[in-house]
């Protein structure tokens, strides 16, 4: 299994949609074959269409508000000693998280396909919030599927979705979290694919959804590359790009421009949700060596039992609380280009407390997992090492959980 250079990772799959011959694919019911094929053809056409790209860039700049800033966290760096800690503050994007990239692109595609309705899943509520925002902006009717447990724990985002006029469909099956929301959303699409477009909130799902999402979030690393060159005059020699990984959309977006670099120069570190310290449950299929399985139309490392039933997951962070992971991250793991680890709920909370204490930054529980790893390794590293954390979400949505856990 080998990575190719000069080709975006999202395009490095074979004709059946598999990365590295075994991750990804399109395990879908017959009914979805046609809409998936239509979407695949449309995306292939649009990504080469200059008018479409111009439109995308226009909305990225004027609606999402890119580029988001790239800042040095001086206080945190001084406190920890060792490596310099920087942050790419993606949470500045309109709506407060990277999910707005995928949501905007999916709405533009839905318009181009002539669909009037758009549906999506959400865990932390950011994917749903952004899709509802973008749908409103582009005049599409929107339905969001969300686990009943997540509706309770991410209330601020639920309120935002309702304000945007989206219908929220609570999902009561299974563990009532993201995994069930995605299943229900796919089931809805099976029944309504003639007039409805589906947006998958992360780089998961059937091959084409991985590609569209990755293509959208790649904007993050395009910006970062420019910002690095302008701050340091060239790409520095020792960089560590740390990102949380649930489905893996922000991590892919944060890394995509840097995958071709030697890992000695730019190390890619993905941090999964390790769950509560005392619990056996987690949402870390990559770093806890789960077996390959098929979930929601794609093969990936997957939290499952020997029979192929999907395991319950547990994480304080609703956005990372997912048993599967993007096939492209499985590919990056097996080719050893990226390193994956996990942070526990407690470590993420501690990191959130530390970052907010020292910096004027309010990372949500998802990127707090990435900060936990940064805080762990920074003191051991040289002063010329540049750690960059993707602060991909804002903690406003975590208000209730933080209050409960921290008082």
């Amino acid at each position, binding site marked *: 299994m080998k990575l190719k250079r000069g080709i975006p990772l999202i395009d490095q799959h074979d004709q059946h949609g598999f990365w590295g011959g075994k991750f990804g694919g399109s395990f879908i019911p017959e009914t979805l074959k046609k809409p998936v094929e239509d979407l695949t053809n449309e995306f292939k056409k649009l990504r080469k269409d200059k008018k479409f790209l111009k439109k995308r860039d226009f909305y990225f700049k004027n609606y999402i508000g890119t580029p988001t800033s790239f800042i040095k966290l001086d206080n945190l760096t001084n406190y920890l000693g060792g490596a310099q800690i920087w942050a790419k503050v993606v949470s500045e994007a309109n709506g407060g998280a990277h999910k707005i990239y995928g949501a905007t692109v999916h709405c533009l595609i839905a318009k181009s396909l002539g669909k009037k309705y758009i549906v999506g899943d959400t865990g932390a509520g950011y994917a749903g919030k952004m899709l509802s925002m973008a749908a409103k902006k582009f005049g599409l009717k929107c339905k969001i599927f969300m686990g009943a447990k997540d509706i309770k724990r991410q209330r601020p985002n639920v309120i935002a979705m309702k304000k945007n006029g989206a219908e929220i469909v609570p999902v009561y099956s299974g563990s009532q979290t993201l995994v069930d929301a995605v299943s229900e959303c796919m089931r809805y699409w099976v*029944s309504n694919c003639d007039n409805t477009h589906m947006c998958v909130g992360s780089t998961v799902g059937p091959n084409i959804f991985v590609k569209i999402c990755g293509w959208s979030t790649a904007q993050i690393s395009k910006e970062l590359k420019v910002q690095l060159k302008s701050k340091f005059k060239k790409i520095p020699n020792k960089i560590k790009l740390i990102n949380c990984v649930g489905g893996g959309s922000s991590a892919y977006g944060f890394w995509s421009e840097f995958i071709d670099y030697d890992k000695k120069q730019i190390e890619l570190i993905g941090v999964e949700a390790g769950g509560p310290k005392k619990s056996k449950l987690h949402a870390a299929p990559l770093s806890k060596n789960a077996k390959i399985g098929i979930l929601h139309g794609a093969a990936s490392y997957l939290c499952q039992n020997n*029979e192929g039933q999907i395991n319950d997951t547990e994480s304080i962070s609703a956005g990372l609380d997912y048993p599967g992971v993007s096939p492209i991250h499985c590919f990056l793991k097996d080719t050893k280009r990226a390193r994956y680890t996990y942070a526990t709920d407690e470590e993420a909370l501690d990191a959130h407390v530390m970052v907010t204490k020292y910096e004027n930054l309010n990372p949500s529980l998802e990127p707090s997992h990435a900060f936990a790893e940064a805080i762990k390794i920074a003191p051991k590293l040289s002063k010329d090492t540049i750690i960059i954390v993707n602060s991909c979400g804002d903690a406003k949505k975590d208000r209730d959980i933080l209050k409960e856990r921290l008082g």
Partner: protein
Amino acid sequence: MASLLKQAFQNAKSENRPALLTYTVAGDNNKKKSLEILKSISNYADICELGFPHNTPIADGGQIQTSAYRAIKNGIKINDIFSIVKNFKKSKKTKPIILMGYYNMIFQYNENKFITKCKESKVDGLIVVDLPYPENKIFASKCKKNKINYIQLVSPTTSKLRLKKIIKDSHDMIYYISMLSTTGGKLKVSPKKILKEYTKIKNQNKSKNVVIGFGITEKTIKSLKKADGLVVGSAICKEITNSIKKRQNAVINVSNLVKRLKNKIK
């Protein structure tokens, strides 16, 4: 010799009616009961589909989900499913059994081992919801080599060209999904329109047995009786759920339902 599936269709045809296919979830509501239900309904059903339950089904509606969760909760394992089939076949040697489910369970069990087990327990056919054509080509031909029918699905969204290819690669039976829906949805397309699509498939190759499924209940079954076969699943699962709720005998209630269904298409 013709497969048991083919024979079942021929029998029905000789009686001038469609074959009745039932779907129940293995292990619903437990291992013993589901075998009893299967044995009892097979007195009226021509072909029995047995679902291997998965906890994240992407194409099943509420009724089948409920049955599947119930079966999993009561501890059903894949090996139990094979033993149900084996036991069933001891007394019902000529009644065809089709296993139906999602690919991850086969993948985890191992494809080859799964096929061997199917053969040992005398499974007649397989439906894998999320392994469509052409991705299923290799697996389907492995099944065929072992005299197991791999049943291809066709839906209203299947293009003409694709339909041709699927039929060419199909075995004795093809499953037409009546409408854009998960299982157990309300029939939102008129029977006339469904039969029109059905005829298009049938016209491609008359020797293939085409069954219609999704949205078929006591109310709708009669209107589709022109088909080679009709599948009823969610309505049966619902009957099991209701029987449990009312503390009634599920075996009797479900058998009566299947008997009524059969009478409607005679």
